[in-house]
């Protein structure tokens, strides 16, 4: 009988606990865990999950960068080509204010999000135009490709790239060119002329070309490897196709999507430097002509046929995944409704609040959250109140306006990690407003000026004084938001008690603009995030429903639903961001009694985990 040592060239380790997973070199390691009496291994698997959607559905698009810092550019529509450029941060795409100088489709792309190259393509006629992106804008390169083409393979970095194969308007071509960062130089040709191929690689001396259509329409899945002096034919793909997305390097590549079969495939193949292996998992949305970026183990695919906006993220490793969900956190020491927050999910500050109907005095206690428990700190606010506008971090925050036991307040206080210090007051006394920004550069907006009218007032904090700036378009209280002093999103709230609203407004540093509304109108809502990526949760449909658990996600353009909170509530504090959020306190029913309950929202997390092979 063949032994494991004879097959793997190493023996099975006898260990009392699982070893540490280091990197991909750990893959395949087998050990016997004597504590659990199990034979275990690091067995990598791959999986696609959804990422943030492109802002504009785009086919025949190009890409560059990594899974968490990707760039998408060019494509259709319109049929004559677009110059659209979008940037991805691993969660959402942002439209770049400026696009390619030459609108085009079926172009090549390589490099990073801040140093990319766009090359060739259709306009609709073939172009040799080359442009370089610096993270902000595209600049036309003085010289273009020597062979005008589209549907080529392209790979490398901005100062060391390659373009190979493609379609010259009449035929598939085999020519290959090397980019130095300024000029293109002809290099040895591919062995097989083709178009619609895809490529991977890190320089102009190291690349892999794969797939594509050979005239007049065969798809053999041909793969060639380039070493800086010649292309060498290596093992072909398992599913021959064109117009794939791709990522990776010459020795560790990933291919996904493409055509045929018609109308598209979601097939995913992994290249290990020698051969292609078909992954048991496929893109959830089969498509061709999509963009790709990243590595063999952490890639992103986006756009494609059907003018898709869909983005999918590929992760390959020994990971197990925790689903995106709300989970309970540690309870506040002091129950509080209409408290406010600052900081992050794991380093939060609880500010002020209103304890129990007709009960104890308004809350001055300040609490810290460390990701699992709240601790009351010695510092207390100088003015007890609830519903302030807050901003900043756990140890550097500002709390402005709010409601004290006699009515709305104009007081402002700054927290430095140990004490609250009174600052100059806001211009418009009000309560149940919201804030964004930092301790020294904040924005407060909305509220009610009591006892009835709601407010549109917006004020900007310089670190020393509050200045009235342009007002919200829609007067409201019980709203929420997130962002910075110059880029904030505000949503929900309403002219309570006469109603609640869904309106959303975006602040650009000068004025508010109405944008797409929440799916569910509500007030006394919670929120966190940025102008382009936010989360809205809970709230009240007053007077019809005291509290709701609805959660929505803002992608800079529109709201969509996320899994609900465990406990419906309104008038609570919040901190964090779209992917890592904290909600604490608030009220859950008609009694207005405040709760100590805390919930934490976390997006999906991948964790290294071993596989049990046998148990003995």
């Amino acid at each position, binding site marked *: 009988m063949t032994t494991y040592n004879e097959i793997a060239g190493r023996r099975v380790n006898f260990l009392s606990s699982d070893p540490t997973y280091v990197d991909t070199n750990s893959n395949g390691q087998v050990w016997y865990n004597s504590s659990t009496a199990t034979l275990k291994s690091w067995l990598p698997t791959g999986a696609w999950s*959804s990422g943030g959607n492109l802002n504009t559905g785009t086919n025949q698009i190009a890409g560059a960068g990594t899974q968490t810092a990707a760039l998408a550019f060019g494509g*259709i529509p319109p049929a004559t080509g677009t110059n659209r450029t979008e940037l991805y941060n691993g969660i959402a795409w942002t439209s770049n204010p400026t696009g390619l100088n030459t609108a085009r489709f079926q172009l090549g792309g390589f490099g990073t999000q801040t140093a990319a190259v766009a090359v060739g393509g259709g306009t609709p006629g073939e172009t040799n135009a080359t442009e370089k992106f610096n993270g902000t804008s595209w600049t036309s390169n003085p010289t273009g490709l020597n062979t005008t083409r589209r549907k080529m393979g392209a790979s490398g970095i901005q100062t060391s790239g390659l373009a190979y194969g493609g379609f010259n308007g009449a035929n598939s071509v085999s020519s290959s060119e090397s980019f130095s960062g300024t000029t293109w130089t002809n290099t040895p040709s591919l062995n097989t002329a083709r178009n619609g191929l895809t490529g991977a690689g890190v320089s102009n001396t190291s690349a892999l070309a794969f797939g594509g259509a050979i005239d007049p329409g065969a798809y053999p899945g041909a793969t060639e490897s380039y070493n800086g002096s010649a292309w060498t034919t290596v093992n072909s793909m398992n599913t021959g196709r064109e117009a794939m997305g791709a990522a990776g390097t010459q020795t560790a590549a990933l291919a996904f999507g493409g055509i045929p079969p018609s109308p598209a495939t979601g097939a995913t193949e992994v290249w290990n430097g020698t051969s292609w292996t078909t992954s048991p998992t496929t893109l959830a949305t089969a498509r061709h002509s999509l963009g790709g970026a990243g590595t063999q183990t952490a890639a992103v695919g986006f756009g494609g046929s059907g003018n898709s906006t869909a983005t999918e993220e590929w992760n390959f490793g020994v990971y197990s995944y925790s689903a995106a969900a709300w989970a309970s956190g540690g309870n506040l020491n002091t129950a509080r409704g209409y408290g406010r927050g600052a900081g992050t999910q794991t380093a939060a500050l609880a500010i002020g609040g209103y304890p129990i109907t007709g009960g104890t005095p308004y809350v001055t206690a300040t609490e810290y959250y460390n990701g699992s428990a709240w601790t009351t700190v010695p510092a207390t606010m100088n003015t007890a109140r609830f519903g302030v506008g807050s901003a900043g971090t756990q140890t550097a925050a500002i709390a402005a306006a709010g409601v004290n036991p006699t009515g709305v307040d104009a007081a402002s206080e700054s927290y430095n990690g140990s004490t609250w210090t009174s600052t100059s007051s806001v211009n418009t006394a009000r309560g149940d407003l919201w804030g964004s920004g930092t301790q020294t550069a904040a924005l407060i907006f909305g509220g009610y000026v009591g006892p009835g009218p709601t407010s549109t007032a917006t004020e900007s904090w310089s670190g020393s004084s509050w200045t009235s700036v342009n007002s919200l378009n829609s007067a409201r209280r019980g709203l929420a938001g997130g962002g910075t002093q110059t880029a904030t999103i505000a949503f929900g709230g309403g002219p309570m008690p006469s109603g609640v609203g869904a309106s959303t407004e975006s602040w650009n540093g000068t004025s508010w603009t109405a944008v797409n509304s929440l799916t569910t109108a509500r007030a006394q809502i919670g929120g966190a995030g940025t102008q382009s990526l936010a989360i809205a949760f809970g709230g009240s449909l007053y007077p019809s429903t005291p509290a709701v658990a609805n959660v929505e996600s803002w992608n800079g353009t529109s709201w969509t639903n996320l899994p609900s909170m465990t406990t419906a509530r309104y008038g609570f504090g919040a901190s964090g961001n779209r992917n890592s959020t904290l909600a604490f306190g608030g009220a859950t029913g008609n009694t207005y009694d405040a709760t100590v309950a805390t919930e934490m929202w976390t997006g999906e997390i991948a964790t290294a985990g071993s596989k049990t092979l046998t148990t003995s």
Partner: protein
Amino acid sequence: MALFIYGVASNYGKDFFTAQDRQNFFLRGFPGDVWVIGATEKGALWLAERGVEKTKAEAQAIVDGEVSKAQAAYDALPEEQKTNLNRQRPTAINLP
């Protein structure tokens, strides 16, 4: 027992489906926000939280409508653009 359930759900992006979801049940997206989901408890819960269940015939009709629209858009293109797009006319999709 049916292998799949069918539904309509708008892909809102991040966390719409997770890697864990993909490991838990079959999931395929089609034009018209149509999704074919493995007929498991986790698959059914996923759809219930994100969209509306349809019969296979209803889902197929939505996909057919989207393909028809894509075909009409393709047919309306000038011949030159059809060549430049270098793509065939969109073809029918049969749901599993």
